């Protein structure tokens, strides 16, 4: 798959079909990948595909001028489709190099499983539905779902639907929603007061670094409401009230664009369980309006479209 990607990417640049290639190269730390954005055809030799290509590359599309060849996993492709729906990028300007994704490995989970820091691990390999970790000369095996990100376990689209070049065998979706929705179900069993207190505790940790917003491909506003000063909607000081308002309103603003790709939760430096918000919003949108973000590039964006009769029970 990697070889094919390198060839295709090189050919795209050589034939001047695209101006840029966005993909992944090995990161500076063990078991990491870092985004590679290049116009140089020799750089394509560094492109990789492995279970650590965590970033959602669609985030870079809105910042780049010209035609782009982009490496996309299923979730990235949904974000790209969502951007096409919103007219943020033109379909003809992008070449999607589709990666049938096996799921991404969450290093934090691995660290917890083997009780070692990631630097102490010798190797992590994947075989079918097992992950084998080499540590201290020993081999340890784990079931794949123990090691994947929660949003990968819930993945509804491992292979992009919308693509130009497919780099491997397509994979059928096998979402295990019960496993990935555990946190939300637990929260829903509590009283409203307890839920509010839970979020209050979580957001009292928030340092308002805006990593969630910056990593989010759906958050493409040139100016975010949190930076408005007249009126000043939220105070710049990270107090829990304003942190909560920021995240809630961010979630509402990206409703119908958010594909529950889990980037916000992954990049959060204080580990706020943001996917418990995005997933719920994803489900609310699906339940009320039968809308799944990023599935159909011809579909009207959620908030510009309507049906004559819907959600009437909420109105007096």
């Amino acid at each position, binding site marked *: 798959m990697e070889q094919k990607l390198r060839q295709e990417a090189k050919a795209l640049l050589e034939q001047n079909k695209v101006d840029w290639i966005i993909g992944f190269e090995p990161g500076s730390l063990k078991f990491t990948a870092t985004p590679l954005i290049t116009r140089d055809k020799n750089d394509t030799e560094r492109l990789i595909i492995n279970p650590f290509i965590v970033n959602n590359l669609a985030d870079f599309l809105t910042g780049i001028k010209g035609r782009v060849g982009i490496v996309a996993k299923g979730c990235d492709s949904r974000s790209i489709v969502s951007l096409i729906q919103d007219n943020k990028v033109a379909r003809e300007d992008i070449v999607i190099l589709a990666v049938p994704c096996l799921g991404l490995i969450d290093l934090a989970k691995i660290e917890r499983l083997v009780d070692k820091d990631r630097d102490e691990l010798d190797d992590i390999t994947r075989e079918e539905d097992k992950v084998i970790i080499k540590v201290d000369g020993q081999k340890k095996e784990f079931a794949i779902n123990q090691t994947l990100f929660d949003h990968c376990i819930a993945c509804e689209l491992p292979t992009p639907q919308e693509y130009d070049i497919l780099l491997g065998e397509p994979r059928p979706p096998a979402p295990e929603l019960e496993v990935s929705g555990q946190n939300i179900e637990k929260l829903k069993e509590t009283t409203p007061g307890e839920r509010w207190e839970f979020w209050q*505790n979580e957001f009292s940790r928030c340092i308002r670094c805006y990593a969630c917003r910056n990593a989010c491909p759906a958050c493409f506003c040139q100016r975010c409401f949190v930076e408005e000063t007249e009126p000043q909607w939220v105070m710049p000081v990270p107090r829990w009230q304003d942190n909560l308002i920021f995240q809630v309103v961010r979630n509402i603003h990206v409703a119908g664009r958010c594909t529950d790709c889990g980037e916000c939760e992954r990049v959060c430096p204080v580990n706020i369980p943001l996917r418990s918000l995005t997933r719920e919003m994803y489900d609310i949108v699906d339940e009320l309006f039968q809308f799944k973000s990023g599935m159909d590039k011809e579909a009207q964006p959620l908030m510009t479209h309507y049906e004559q009769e819907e959600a009437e029970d909420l109105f*007096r």
Partner: protein
Amino acid sequence: MTQQSEWEPKLLGFLCRWCSYAGADLAGTSRKKYPANIRAIKVPCSSRVDSLFIIKALRLGFDGVLVSGCHPGDCHYLTGNYRARRRIAITKKFLEYLGVEPERIQASWVSASEGGKFAEVVTEVTGDLKKVGPNQLFAERKLAKEN
């Protein structure tokens, strides 16, 4: 003689200038009785109301928010209220999930000729808010983890 003053909920109303705001006027001119708990803000259309306004109102201490616009099909701008409907629906559901009492976010369709309905809606909403009590959502409390 002193009177025990009872707590009264504060309700913020976003009223569409083409219908509900005129409806509120009509309720006044036809001398309908309704609680004085509502503070009305005139908006050009119910779809002008961003979810941010609703949450900010709760943050500022309003006990409830009412968004009122034209009946479906009657929007002055043809489709504004349909869009408002989607936005308010997700806001309400999402805030309910977070732990906000659903009674605090209310929405209604009131046309310019429905002074009576406006009075009814405000009466009902005020009654609901009295049941759920004062808005303590954003009050400073001791966090469980700091204890």
